[in-house]
């Protein structure tokens, strides 16, 4: 119950953060925190809810958020073969990968729809994404309520 309330508050906070920093995804660090501290099932449900939120507020056709989170989860899964999941350097690397995914996905999907866009702005947003990802991960990890028994899912 406490965790469910915490994830609801996290979602509201991430929406507000996204309204202050256009083009930056604040849900992605939460997804990693959920995989590390909560269950995979909950991560899947949260992922579905956040995909709907991101797609609803976006101006691209459905598909961006789905591909972004799938890419992030695949990179996290592969990265854990080489790094310890909670290593800060690994999280920074994941932030850089997410920035790369944002840049390449935006360019590809916008061209699919024949949209004209500001490429410099997309690059700037990708850099902000790389910067904010580890910071948001640290904040979410620290604020996440400790479970009654110290069990960790992943």
């Amino acid at each position: 119950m406490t965790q469910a309330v915490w994830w609801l508050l996290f979602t509201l906070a991430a929406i507000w953060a996204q309204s202050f920093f256009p083009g930056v995804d604040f849900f992605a660090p939460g997804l990693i925190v959920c995989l590390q501290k909560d269950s995979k099932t909950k991560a899947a449900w949260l992922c579905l809810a956040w995909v709907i939120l991101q797609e609803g507020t976006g101006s691209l056709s459905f598909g961006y958020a789905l591909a972004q989170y799938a890419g992030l989860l695949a990179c996290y899964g592969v990265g854990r073969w080489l790094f310890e999941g909670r290593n800060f350097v690994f999280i920074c690397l994941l932030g850089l990968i997410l920035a790369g995914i944002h840049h390449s996905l935006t360019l590809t999907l916008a061209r699919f729809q024949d949209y004209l866009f500001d490429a410099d702005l997309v690059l700037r947003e990708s850099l902000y994404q790389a910067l904010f990802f580890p910071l948001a991960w640290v904040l979410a990890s620290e604020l996440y309520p400790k479970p009654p028994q110290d069990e960790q899912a992943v």
Partner: protein
Amino acid sequence: MRLRRIAAIILAGLFFYLTLYTWNQRTGHLDSLTGYTGLEFVGLTLKPGKWIAGQFSGFWDRYVYLVGVREQLDEARAEVDQLKLEQADLKERAALATRLESLLSFTPPPAWFKEGGRVIGQRLGPASVLETIMVDKGKVQGVAEDSPVLAPKGLLGRVLRVSPTSCTVLLLTDPNSKIAVRGQKKRFAGILVGQGRGSPLALRYVNVNALLEEGELLVTSGMDKIFPKGLPVARIKSVARAEGSSPTVTAELLADAATMEEITLLRRDADLDEDEEE
């Protein structure tokens, strides 16, 4: 064996994704679903905060920040007197135009209704590539896709996506925004194209011999069937002519979306829309 399994999973995932993407491109069902749920939830999350911020800034402006109010009041009174005179003159001209239109059997323009709205957000999330703002009015209030959006000074854009109580508005500054305009005095026609935030708009497809002047007001021509005729949009900023080619014209938007807090949405009479479809 394990590598082959991973490759098969990746290929199956890619196939599923592309199928879903192309199906949605054709039908738009997933876009509607996410608009109705995701956009609505985000709108409901942002509205209370924006309302509180509006109340606080209103309280500050009304009761605390009173420096120079007296001078502003005097200026406003003088402006109101001037506007009253202009309004009387315009009323007279409007009455004359109506009489002439009825004499010449013009078809009356379709009725448009105004709906006030509050800006609750700018571009939101990584999938928002286009220059947009979020507004706290949606389908429940009669807002539909392509509804024109006005600021007090002039046209701001059109509705891109609608949820029950919120909508996103595509701004005229976006490079994908193109609207048909006309010079208010010289009546030349052209297409006004956005060039991104902070950049002036470009006026394209203008006749080579058009009488273009800096400072001329551009109004909607109504030819695109989206915006009503005669709404002020932009003012010509610069005109550069080169021999044998169309002039390069830039225009400055009258309304500034970055500082806009309240807007007006225009919606057409539903009965008229049905008649046109028939």
